[in-house]
């Protein structure tokens, strides 16, 4: 087992290094092929690992590869902790990565920097594996930063494009704000438990005496450190208000949006909280905070997608919104449910992005959905796949999204308190919103009339691009049937583990009859009337609705807020630099003191005139003064 677990990340790393440094030795196609094969082997190995967990929940594979740092009692290691949670995550990451590898060979074939791209995605997969497999907080953080770094590099993949390099700087800095809190959270956990190691932390969690630890701002120590860790997750998993980087990250190549900014990296925050669920399960305030953040992200960011016109950005906003669902489930301590949604979401969201990529390619890099329309007949395969993705995301019965989303909505009602009821209604409204924007996208892209040029020019892409779509479609349809694995997923046996689940059939019946289905139908109806049939509703002319629309279209001014803060920071720094560092310290003190000495000496020099009567006068004057003093003293 250890060899296999060692090989999984190493093969991917090898792929990255080989492709990255190969220079001209291997041509583009073969380098793509090599790295796909290596990822495929890793994927196969991860299936081996995962299958061994299928029947046995209690097994935990735990080992250190090597000591990263050890000073006396401080041990930081690089190793692995494989349980059901991380083994499933391994499979998801490697599977999506594999699909994206295949897709990219087709999608990126005309790029000059083809190899750089492949090297990056392999390195990304490696970092993600490091994160997923980690058995301690520091390794998790290393992987965490690693995926952020590759995300940064890939958003700025086209480094001549001003918008791309702005977007990647923004992504990097916002993530760094999160990371700052994340590392503080890690350090706090370390101070309490004297270890970074998950196992040690989880086994000592009951024996730790909270009263001995300091509390900050009225929050107990663990609550506070978990809050800090979660702020890190908010940046990575794009939760309000740190979500602003994700829509802009769509500047990167589309396969990347599927891999990094939808299926895997952005779910790292969810994974982290699920991994640390024993800690989070003990928190009150932080759990409520997580719930509120998640629910508001799911609703408020989802709404933005209704008014967005860039096909990738619509899907990006929907990603943020779906992440909100997962986070909300974390807030109610339903970690396994959240993870289940992560699992299904990975497939259908990757599917939607890759479909979008296929559409964008067919339309020669036109991304504005207002210019599309009627593509159903020209891109039949993409259409069917996109339809499946749409049905999944809205939670249409029997698709994968149906199971996971229904479960999230259901667990919201388990706790009888106001916050969770509010969250439930926000998420339910969110389901309506999801339905509206998803169908809007579908109708605007595939129905109606094509609005820019001749529709006959549009052709379906090559098999290399379509094959991944079909594979992902199948999984989007079927992933939900793994529900029983997730129901009894032991995430260190904490959180809600008595989820009401009595058989698949009952669950489906229950789900179909739930309010979510009503939301779905209502959403479909409105989307169809407005975007397909072009019905003009009078209600949109009402002033208050217009104001709402304006607020939503302005994206709540979060971007402006961050830009303003950055400007303020630069201005302040400028002030410091000019007024304080240069004017006060350097000019006034450092250079000023010698200057003053210099001036004083010059004055002194002026007194040495060389005229005899000046000297005679000063001698006489001095004598008078001296004798005067003596006289005064004597008297």
């Amino acid at each position, binding site marked *: 087992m250890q060899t296999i677990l060692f090989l999984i990340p190493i093969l991917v790393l090898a792929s990255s290094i080989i492709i990255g440094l190969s220079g001209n030795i291997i041509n583009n196609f073969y380098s793509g092929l090599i790295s796909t094969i290596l990822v495929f082997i890793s994927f196969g190995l991860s299936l081996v690992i995962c299958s061994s967990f299928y029947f046995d929940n209690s097994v935990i594979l735990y080992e250190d590869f090597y000591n990263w740092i050890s000073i*006396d009692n401080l041990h930081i290691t690089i190793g692995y902790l494989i349980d059901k949670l991380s083994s499933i995550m391994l499979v998801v990451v490697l599977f999506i990565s594999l699909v994206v590898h295949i897709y990219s060979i087709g999608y990126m074939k005309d790029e000059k920097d083809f190899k750089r791209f492949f090297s990056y995605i392999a390195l990304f997969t490696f970092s993600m594996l490091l994160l997923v497999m980690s058995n301690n907080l520091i390794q998790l953080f290393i992987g965490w930063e690693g995926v952020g770094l590759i995300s940064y590099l890939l958003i700025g993949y086209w480094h*001549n494009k001003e918008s791309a390099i702005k977007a990647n700087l923004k992504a990097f*800095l916002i993530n760094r704000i999160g990371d700052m809190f994340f590392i*503080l959270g890690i350090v706090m956990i370390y101070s309490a438990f004297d270890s970074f190691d998950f196992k040690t932390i989880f086994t000592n969690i009951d024996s730790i005496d909270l009263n001995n630890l300091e509390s900050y701002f009225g929050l107990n120590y663990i609550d506070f450190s978990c809050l800090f860790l979660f702020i890190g997750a908010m940046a990575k998993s794009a939760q309000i208000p740190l979500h602003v980087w994700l829509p802009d990250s769509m500047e990167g190549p589309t396969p990347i949006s599927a891999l990094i900014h939808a299926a895997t990296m952005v779910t790292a925050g969810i994974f982290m909280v699920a991994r640390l669920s024993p800690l989070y399960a003990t928190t009150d305030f932080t759990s409520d905070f997580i719930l509120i953040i998640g629910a508001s992200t799911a609703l408020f960011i989802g709404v933005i997608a209704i008014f967005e016109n860039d096909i990738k950005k619509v899907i990006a906003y929907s990603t943020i919104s779906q992440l909100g669902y997962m986070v909300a489930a974390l807030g109610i301590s339903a970690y396994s449910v959240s993870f289940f949604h992560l699992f299904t979401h990975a497939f259908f969201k990757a599917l939607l992005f890759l479909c979008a990529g296929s559409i964008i390619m067919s339309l020669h890099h036109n991304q504005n959905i207002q210019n599309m329309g009627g593509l159903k007949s020209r891109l039949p395969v993409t259409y069917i796949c996109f339809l499946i993705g749409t049905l999944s995301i809205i939670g249409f019965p029997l698709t994968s999204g149906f199971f996971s989303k229904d479960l999230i909505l259901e667990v919201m009602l388990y706790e009888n308190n106001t916050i969770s009821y509010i969250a439930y209604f926000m998420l339910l409204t969110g389901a309506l919103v999801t339905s509206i924007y998803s169908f809007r996208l579908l109708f605007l892209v595939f129905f109606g009339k094509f609005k820019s040029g001749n529709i006959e020019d549009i052709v379906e892409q090559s098999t290399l691009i379509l094959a991944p779509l079909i594979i992902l479609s199948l999984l989007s349809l079927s992933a939900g049937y793994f529900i029983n694995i997730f129901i009894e997923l032991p995430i260190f046996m904490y959180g809600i583990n008595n989820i009401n689940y009595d058989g698949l059939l009952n669950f489906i019946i229950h789900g179909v009859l739930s309010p979510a289905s009503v939301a779905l139908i209502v959403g479909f109806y409105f989307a169809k009337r407005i975007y397909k049939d072009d019905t003009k509703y009078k209600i949109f002319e009402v002033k208050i609705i217009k104001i709402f629309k304006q607020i939503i279209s302005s994206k709540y001014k979060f971007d402006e807020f961050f830009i303003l803060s950055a400007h303020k920071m630069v201005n302040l720094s400028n002030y410091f630099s000019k007024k304080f560092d240069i004017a006060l310290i350097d000019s006034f003190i450092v250079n000023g003191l*010698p200057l003053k000495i210099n001036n004083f000496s010059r004055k002194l020099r002026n007194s040495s005139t060389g005229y005899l009567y000046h000297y005679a006068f000063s001698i006489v004057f001095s004598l008078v003064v001296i004798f005067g003093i003596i006289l005064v003293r004597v008297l």
Partner: protein
Amino acid sequence: MNINILSLLIWLPIFSGLLLLFYNRKIKYINLYNIFINALIFVFSVLLLKNFNHAIADFQFVENIQWIEYLNINYYLGVDAISILLILLNSIIFLIVAFYNSTLTIKKQNHYYASFLIANGLTIGVFSALDAILFYVFFEALLIPMFLIIGIWGGPNRIYAAIKFFIYTFLGSVLLLISFIYINSTIHSFNVNSFYDAHFSLAEQEWLFIAMAIAFAIKIPMFPFHTWLPDAHVEAPTSGSVILAAILLKVGAYGFLRYVIPVVPMGALSLDIYFIILSLIAIVYVGMIAIVQDDMKKLIAYSSISHMGFVTLGFFIIFQLFSNTSIKEDIVISLSGSMYQIISHGFISAALFICVGSIYDRYKTKKISEISGILNQMPIYGWFFVFFALANCGMPGTSSFVGELLIIISSFKANFIYSILASGTLVISAAYSMWLVKRVIYGESQININNYIDANKRETIILFTLSLIVLILGIYPDYMITFMNATLVNMVDNIIIKISI
């Protein structure tokens, strides 16, 4: 093993440097000679490392000869793990600089190389001297070659920068000398070991601490004594900047570790809060100043000051840790973090200055607003620049993360506020490094001439080596941490004993 290996390491480069002053004919031979001597020093320092037993905390390779008898001054050399690591850093950086210089053509090339060779020997002298006066002599003598390098081969405003650099650091040294003499007047010895054993009253310790700390604070430099550094960097030639950032700043840090903290710990204990505040100011405020610089070299200079703030923070929180928890382990972690940061910053800043210097050679400007899109014209330099900029902002997997992590860990134990401010560097360093990358490396090229040559083979090898070192130190830090553990534990033991009495 040759017992006098330390003397060899010191005097071989100095004498070969002096010899080089008289030969100025074939550039090719000068280059070869220069690289050969530096490589030899490198090999010797690796031998030193190999034969060093890091399980023993005492000074090793000791040489002790009477120098000036009636003043009790000895020619006393020896190394512990800290000095060995610094000597190794020193010889690697000088070898790299020798390689880098061999691609240049400048006036009085032999004199230029000679200055570097002499500086090489003198720095090793600083790191291995165990007699305070001997240390002081090397410490001061080191100013001469640096003064010449900036003053002769520097930029347009070089005279101002060189004199500022000289007088400023000299001012500090005077305080240092006075302190040494004062200590000698009570214990009648300049031997470092007897410094460690000496006992002073609290008032004495405080005064000694202030005097010596200012001397080294100027050298490191700490806020508010830092303004000489940006000027010196901007005017210094590329290799001068490399030495300045990678080696000379470390001399100041080494001084703290060797002559201040273990000698007058009580003084440090009672005044540590001021130095912690200054360190935090360096991290946050100087980092912010770095964001708005328009000169690439200035930006990196300010970022150096900010990073050295981490080093001094690691030095001074140990006293708070002592009063809070008095767990020895925490103190060792903090000092290990500082040492790691010292070594790591040496390599990263050297690489950044080489990148900037090479860009300057080709574009004849260092102004950020005048350059953009380097990746289009010089992809090799561009990608190395991105790599080292990422290393500069503490990316895990690179060496700088290790030091920052250890210091943040221990600063949290000292005080929650410290750790919040210290971890602010994650954002601030990312802001200045990556914004610089965005403006200079990415984007469309402003000046479009086809004859910008990318890094040649030699430069690629240099940068590749440096990035490899940075990566190895980041991926497997345990070797170095273990290497210096015994020395640091011993040092901490001594400090604790001294404070407890």
